[in-house]
């Protein structure tokens, strides 16, 4: 008997064979999960039918019957439209909140490591006091005290006519608004969206090894696809098949100008790497932006005007205004998340090995240069995953706006449910939308994380 046949004959029986057991147990687990899920689902549908509750999603097409403050929403519009307004409000708070919280958080995080005693202690006080309080209480405090009582009532608002207005009901500042009724063919925004798509494809291709024929095909196909997609999107959202407002055209053209400015900065960096001369890429990018932006602005016939807020009969006209609930939620979430981000930033800076600081000092870099060129770039790499977590937290914390009556997604869904629409389906939609937000934020931060990672790390 050879050793192979001996080994082959010593196979354990199937009920003791680890390889088979692994598969069998996972199969059993799957069956249990599916069965439990099916039982729960069946029970839900059965109970809803017994109580005479609708199990479909037809309620989304029913008229909502309520108004949403600070929007063009009419009560005759559908529940789905109401939920979309809620989504828009949530995005408004989340987007602005993420940007502000990051800026404030980074500044305070660096301040906590300052050599100045007062700066260091003030930053520590801010972080410790806000981090340890439940965010709902901060939201209440912002709404009741900061916005509600500290700011004056509308009759006594602090205002400079046409410049700004601050009251406990509304805060208004100047903003750009559509001027005139000029329209442009829908193909124009589509072109404006296709150009950045072409630029991004070019960048993406450059970093990959592909056959020459495939490269050329993609370089033609991508802008074309982007043009068609963008055109379709514009038509879907705007409706009118042939004419689009000057404002929409302007904002899409802004995207093109920004992309081109970024490409110019990248080009200057590459140039500097090969020739060794200073790149001045920020100045070049800004210059491109201003020049191209002005050209587009003039070409479109000055589509936007700067308007200031004016108070007429208790309503604000002109400019852009934020209502009390939005201001309170934004302030509360920004301050709270900034305190967490400050700690993350501080931790990331301290996680950069001390040898880096010493080497930078040995190379005669000033403290500012040291922070800017050596420490912070390495710290950014470390802090991206925890920052992503804080952004997700901020987005989900916007649902607490229901406590102060801010018409974001959760509040609107609650009103929809309270008006006689089925709760199970509404909450399911609510959770799916929050899941989408979270996945989007995770996607973007994962891309950034991968770009920043050191070569070889996966």
């Amino acid at each position, binding site marked *: 008997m050879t050793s192979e046949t001996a080994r082959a004959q010593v196979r354990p029986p199937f009920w003791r064979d680890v390889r088979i057991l692994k598969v069998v147990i996972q199969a059993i687990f799957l069956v*249990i999960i599916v069965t439990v899920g099916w039982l729960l689902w069946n029970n839900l549908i059965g109970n809803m039918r017994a109580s005479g509750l609708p199990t479909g999603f037809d309620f989304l097409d029913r008229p909502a019957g309520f108004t949403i*403050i600070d929007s063009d929403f009419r*009560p005759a519009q559908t529940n789905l439209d109401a939920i979309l307004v809620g989504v828009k409000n949530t995005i408004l708070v989340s987007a602005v909140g993420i940007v502000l919280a990051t800026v404030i958080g980074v500044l305070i995080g660096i301040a906590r490591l300052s050599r100045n005693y007062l700066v260091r202690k003030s930053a520590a006080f801010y972080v410790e006091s806000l981090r340890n309080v439940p965010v709902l209480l901060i939201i209440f405090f912002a709404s009741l005290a900061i916005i509600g009582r500290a700011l004056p009532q509308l009759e006594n608002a602090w205002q400079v006519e046409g410049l700004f207005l601050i009251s406990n*009901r509304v805060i208004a500042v100047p903003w750009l608004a559509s001027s005139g009724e000029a329209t442009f063919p829908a193909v124009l925004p589509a072109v404006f969206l296709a150009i950045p798509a072409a630029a991004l494809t070019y960048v993406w291709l450059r970093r990959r090894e592909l056959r020459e024929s495939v490269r050329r095909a993609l370089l033609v196909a991508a802008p074309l696809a982007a043009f068609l997609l963008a055109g379709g999107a514009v038509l879907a959202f705007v409706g009118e098949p042939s004419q689009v407002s000057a404002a929409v055209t302007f904002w899409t053209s802004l995207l093109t100008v920004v992309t081109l400015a970024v490409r110019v900065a990248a080009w200057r960096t590459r140039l500097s790497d090969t020739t060794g001369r200073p790149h001045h890429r920020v100045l070049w990018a800004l210059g491109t932006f201003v020049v191209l932006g002005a050209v587009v602005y003039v070409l479109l016939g000055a589509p936007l005007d700067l308007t200031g807020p004016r108070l007429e009969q208790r309503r604000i006209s002109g400019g852009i205004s934020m209502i009390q609930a939005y201001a309170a939620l934004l302030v509360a979430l920004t301050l709270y998340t900034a305190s967490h981000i400050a700690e993350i930033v501080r931790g990331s800076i301290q996680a950069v090995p001390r040898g880096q600081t010493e080497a930078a000092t040995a190379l005669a870099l000033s403290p500012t240069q040291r922070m800017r060129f050596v420490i912070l770039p390495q710290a950014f790499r470390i802090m991206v995953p925890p920052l992503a977590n804080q952004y997700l937290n901020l987005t989900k914390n916007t649902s607490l706006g229901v406590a102060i*009556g801010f018409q974001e997604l959760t509040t609107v869904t609650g009103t929809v449910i309270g008006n006689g629409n089925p*709760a199970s389906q509404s909450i399911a939609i609510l959770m799916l939308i929050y899941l989408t937000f979270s996945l989007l934020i995770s996607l973007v931060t994962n891309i950034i994380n991968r770009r920043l990672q050191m070569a070889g790390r996966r």
Partner: protein
Amino acid sequence: MKSTRLLAVLAALVLVLAACEGDAQEDVTTTAADGATTTAADGATTTAGDGTTTAPGDGAADGESLLDEVTARGSLVCGVNDAVPGFGFVGDDGTFAGFDIEFCRVVAAAVLGDSEAVEFRVLTAAERFTALQTGEIDVLIRNTTFTATRDGTEGATFLTTTFYDGQGMMVRADSGFASIDDMANTDICVLQGTTTELNITTLSQARGLDMQNVTFEDNSALQAAFEAGQCDGWTSDRSQLAGVRSQFPEGPEALTILDEVISKEPLGPVSRDGDDDWSDAVNWAVIATIQAEEFGITSANIDDFMETDDPEIARFLGLPDPTEGTVFDPGLGLPTDFAQQVIRQVGNYAEIYERNVGEDGLGLERGFNALWTEGGILYPPPYR
């Protein structure tokens, strides 16, 4: 070893599922075992054991009614409000008091014979119907307006109206608003998910007043905003506004309730669709209070009626008929002397009204809430 760990996880899962089965109040998995199979089998959902679902339409034929379940449990779960003075609020000593609270006790006295056997669940306007639909509460007595949509899509059955109210508008006395038509371009504080919100929207549109609704989940946030001057008016049921005004920190004189009645708001107890036995029982318990007032029976003088010759009163109180000697049982599933329990332990409608929203409470006139014999519209159906 990996398979050992997997087996341990499976065992834990089985234990958790078994633990869930033990909870009778709000378990989903046990009713799944019965409800799922019988739904598949014969289309009508019937449950064995302690299920909370009944066949649509006739609860008496098969399956259990909530009436049996509440009687077996020995206590009533009542969905209430805790922030409306006079109707449902928590007093200084931490106990629930109010018009609606007392009707919860009326139902408990009728069904269980003990008006104290009540568990109160505080609910917001947005979640009250969900709580009713899921069986978390047995009955909802929470200043809820009877509307067609709620009757239809919310799976709710509305019982006898206990309070005929109307929607009103409250403003600051020094605001200069004399009527709603003066309030163009104003911000109005209102509760989210209520009929008041829908009504004020409709009114604003119809009259072109361009009012904006500032909505809140509960009255405490709303009141804080109103006090800070973040809205110009507060709209709600007039009885609620009267209650708030009576307890306003700056004094009732600081506020004015405008005269205009914006809409009809008939308030009453609500039970779940599909359980006729329970709905009937609760309904007649409530009607008994109004009938008692019509007969002139109060908690103080009920003993005088124990030897009555009047066959109507004898039938109502569950006493043997003066001539026939039989005790009347209409087949509602309630004990024959439920009216006695209700009157003795809680009182008749007039007593409940005066204690909470009348002379000893908010000071509201009876108005529509008087008996039909006294100019109001309370008209109890005959108990025969």
